[in-house]
């Protein structure tokens, strides 16, 4: 077993990782089915939908902003793509779906930088507008896709997991190795200083919001591919789950810092807990309670740790 010191080291390195480990062990002991390849694959698939949009959201939060419109964007892109598949084929439809998300995100960025509306309100407005647009487009009905099983590829097997991992690698490189990434972090830690030293913060934010929109669209495509149905009500409330996952992963809401692996682990943790509760036959109603408790617990620990280091520093 792990020594006490190792546990502490792991906790300091990644609290969410340690929690994930503990929760995983508990569920393995409690249920015979948790630690099976099939189940773990299911968990990873369901985690990756939130993880993909969460990764985009990590960039947004690192740049000091939010995007509340991701759920609506996911629904909009899902519907657009579903209706485009029969006309232009699977791959072009997927590409245009993701691009439509990027476009919506870019509009968010424009509203924030050019009209100077705070991101919270700008994306709140876009939340209702884009959701309305998706519902108008589908006339409130479902769009079914018959006989186009290639589209199902997007959600079957390891595809969503691989997409999430690929995006995680991409965004890690982006944040750590590129100028654009450094500019994102600079904008997030202090937008005024960033502007003073010559960072084109407007362009940075356009890029960030476009990326968030594109990731949201990708999540929406996977969701719609899972059921082969496009619906204007898809992914309602995704925005707050995505933010919750990012925060669980240790990315601070204040901006300037990002933890890409944290976001992956955070979404995995939520998926593992939901899955474990399902396996234990616990009512779905408890899933929200545990998510709430997790968030509050994680942040309480973080606050206590910060308090302790502060005390040690001042003593």
């Amino acid at each position, binding site marked *: 077993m792990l020594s006490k010191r190792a546990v502490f080291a792991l906790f300091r390195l990644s609290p969410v990782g340690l929690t994930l480990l503990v929760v995983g062990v508990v569920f393995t002991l409690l249920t015979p089915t948790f630690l099976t390849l099939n189940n773990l694959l299911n968990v990873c698939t369901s985690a990756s939908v939130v993880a993909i949009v969460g990764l985009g959201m990590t960039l947004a939060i690192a740049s000091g902003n939010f995007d509340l419109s991701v759920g609506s964007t996911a629904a909009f892109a899902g519907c657009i793509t579903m209706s485009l598949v029969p006309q232009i084929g699977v791959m072009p439809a997927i590409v245009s779906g993701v691009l439509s998300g990027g476009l919506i995100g870019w509009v968010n960025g424009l*509203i924030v930088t050019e009209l100077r509306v705070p991101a919270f309100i700008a994306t709140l407005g876009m939340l209702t507008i884009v959701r*309305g647009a998706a*519902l108008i487009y589908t006339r409130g009905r479902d769009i079914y896709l018959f006989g186009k099983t290639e589209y199902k590829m997007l959600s079957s097997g390891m595809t969503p997991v691989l997409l999430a991992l690929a995006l995680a690698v991409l965004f890690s490189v982006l944040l750590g190795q590129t100028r654009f990434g450094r500019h994102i972090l600079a904008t997030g830690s202090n*937008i005024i200083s960033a502007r003073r030293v010559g960072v084109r913060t407007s362009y940075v934010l356009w890029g960030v919001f476009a990326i968030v929109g594109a990731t949201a669209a990708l999540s929406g495509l996977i969701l719609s591919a899972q059921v082969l149905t496009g619906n204007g009500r898809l992914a309602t409330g995704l925005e707050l789950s995505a933010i919750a996952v990012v925060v669980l992963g240790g990315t601070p809401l204040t901006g300037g810092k990002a933890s890409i692996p944290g976001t992956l682990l955070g979404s995995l943790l939520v998926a593992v807990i939901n899955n474990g509760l399902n396996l234990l036959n616990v009512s779905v109603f408890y899933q929200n309670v*545990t*998510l709430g408790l997790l968030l509050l617990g994680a942040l309480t620990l973080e606050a206590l740790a*910060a308090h302790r280091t502060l005390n040690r520093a001042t003593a």
Partner: protein
Amino acid sequence: MIEPALPVKSANPLRTVRPAKTDETVNPEVGQASRAIRNLDWDLLWEKFGIATVLAFVWILAALATPRFANLDNLASVLRQSAFVGVAAVGMTIAIIAGTFDLSVGSTQALSAWTAVAIAPYFGVLPAFIAAVAVGGTIGLLNGSLVVLVRIPAFIATLGTMFLISGLTFILTNGQTARFNGKDFVWWGNGLIGNIPVPFILFLFCAAIGAFILHRTSFGRYVFTIGSNAGAAYVAGVPVGRTILFVFVVVGLFTGLGAALLGSRLYSAGPGLEPGFELNVIATVVLGGTRLAGGRGSMFGTVAAAILFATLSNVLNLNHVDAFVQRVAVGLVLLLALSVEGVRQRLVERWNRRQRPSS
């Protein structure tokens, strides 16, 4: 309306450092006319009366365009509809002025409304309302403790309680909707006094209390001070922690009352009462001219914004506009109203730049 004699200008960090807003811009080279216009403080004017003016125009236009709009029954229904978001928005206005906000009001609303509807048949109307308000206050206390004592950022703390309370409500109600149609209970949500709906009267009453708290009490003064600059407020001896804790309780209390009214209006309440309610409430407050960054805002604006949203959906309904298109309209109104300030800033900046081409 009396503004507190405290630094409440410009809570938006983006504004203060724009080159055009630094000391050079108030140099004597700038013309007299421009200074007179600037001295008018369009920010403050727009913030205080902007939405009320828009509302007045919308009412006139609606009355001209839609004959059915301007009749007493319809107006009463508009005002009634405004109350259910409005009462919660009164509390949220105080919270946002204090520089925090509460994402858990939607869950609180569901739990409080269910409590009221479930209790009313057994214990009567007054205990039902008191219970709903008490539930709200308790959740507010929880939120406040998390933010003040545990020091979790308000956004995440209330996001956590949002999930927590919504889950608890589903467990408590077993996913079932409670129903009650007792006459004296549903009167509070549906009744009229004269031609004025009871919930709207209560809404105005709440707004008056809110305005009194904000502008006539030391608590209100603390709220503005903390919203402008929490650090400075702390150094100046304002009891920041206690005030913020109380702010969350106030939000909970008002949300609970609004929830009981909604339960009474609908004769029923269930765990998934109104998804996205928290964002509607915040949208109403912000549309009313209260700055999300804190330190500035008015209860008057919140009342006007609540009525404006209700009017908008009423007029669109009367003209048979699709509910889906209404969502788009609501979002557009929010964005338009909120971009007025930013666009004005940009115009002023461009104008200043043209005045001084040398720099």
